[in-house]
């Protein structure tokens, strides 16, 4: 019994999650109706966004050279929540047989959701950005002030800055940073809702996540190769030069 339980622990409960997925399969959400439900206005905005993104990409190409595009994602349904109360995790309906590996990035409506931490053949476990042990390199998209985000077990997370006096204000959009070793850059994370710049040792702000983690039903899993970049020291000078493409050039060999 103990040996079986130890085996269960070593495999990350793979057998149980497989069984769980099979037992709950009649209740999984059907094909995504999100596209059908979206208003035409939202669709129009999306189309414009695609247009702007492609323009942006071509302009960037002129200025900075080729960027590595994100690989296509795998859609997956959320079939469960964390099995322990001290973790912020979700269980999704795709696993290693669908090409999902540990460390893949999970995004959903509203932006970043988390990272795959364990896979079984047909399900995987995702550590959400709101978990206290989760760390995401982030930056303020307006001013490019960089820092990292740590979870607080809720819809709001805390962003700590590397600079002593970061350029940030309420309402700023926060995205993943080019310094992040674990996440591709420019995935939206959330919006700044509260400032505490006098905080020691590093100034921090509260960020409201844009993806509704507690009600999300469908996610997209993006494969991602971890890259090695230098992480700036905490006491780095205020004017950090961020050259997003350098990091990408260095390693991201597909």
């Amino acid at each position: 019994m103990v040996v079986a339980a130890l085996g269960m622990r070593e495999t990350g409960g793979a057998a149980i999650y497989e069984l769980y997925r099979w037992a709950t399969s009649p209740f999984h959400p059907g094909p995504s109706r999100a596209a059908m439900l979206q208003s035409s206005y939202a669709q129009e905005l999306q189309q414009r966004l695609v247009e702007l993104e492609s323009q942006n990409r071509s302009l960037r190409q002129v200025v900075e050279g080729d960027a590595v595009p994100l690989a296509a994602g795998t859609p997956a349904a959320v079939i469960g929540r964390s099995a322990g109360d001290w973790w912020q995790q979700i269980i999704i309906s795709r696993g290693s047989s669908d090409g999902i590996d540990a460390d893949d990035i999970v995004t959903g409506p509203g932006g970043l959701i988390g990272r795959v931490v364990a896979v079984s053949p047909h399900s995987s476990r995702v550590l959400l950005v709101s978990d206290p042990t989760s760390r995401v390199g982030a930056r303020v998209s307006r001013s490019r002030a960089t820092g990292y985000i740590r979870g607080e077990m809720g819809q709001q997370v805390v962003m700590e800055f590397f600079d002593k006096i970061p350029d940030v204000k309420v309402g700023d959009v926060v995205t993943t940073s080019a310094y992040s070793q674990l996440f591709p850059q420019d995935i939206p994370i959330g919006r700044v809702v509260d400032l505490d710049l006098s905080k020691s040792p590093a100034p921090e702000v509260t960020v409201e996540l844009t993806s509704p983690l507690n009600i999300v039903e469908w996610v997209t899993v993006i494969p991602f190769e971890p890259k090695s970049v230098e992480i700036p020291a905490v006491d780095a000078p205020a004017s950090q030069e961020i050259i997003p493409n350098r990091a990408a050039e260095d390693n991201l060999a597909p």
Partner: protein
Amino acid sequence: MTPARTSSLALRRRYRWLNLAVVIGSALICVMLLPMRLPGMVLLGVGPSWLLIWLVAWSVQRTSVEGAIAGFILGLVQDGLTGYFPTHTLGLTLAGFLTARIQKQRFIQEDFVSVAIIVFAMTVIAQTMMALQISAHQLIISSSPYPSLPEIWLQHQRIALSSAILSSLWAPAVYYPLSRWWAHYEQVMTPPGG
């Protein structure tokens, strides 16, 4: 050996296997309920501790060693489902041990209300063990990813209270069928005239 005697032996053997199936099957159902969040099963984002309810139902009628072993095994399984740290084994082993102790000393009569109360207390104890582990990690290791102590214990309040309330409310759903089965099982297994 008389035919009646052989048939009763065969019956007992069959019941022993059946009991094993019921024990493992019911524990498995509780494990599978853990990742589920059905309506009426969530309070402040926290669900009931199904494994702890099962453990209390198991330990109430057994010795403290049996309770502790069951708690350890269930703790390992739940660790596999979540993560290795903080480990569930400590809290669940302690809960299994204490539940068996309480019953042994006949502090509490065995009925739904007292079982619900035991589940409430054991959930609080198990969640406190988790919070203690996180606090120790935070104090000992300087690069600990966990938040500061006041935040941990604020989370502990939220998690322990809502989990304890939900668990004690759902306790009869697990306890009643299991205790009925085990009472029936004992009746079949006691030798005639014994």
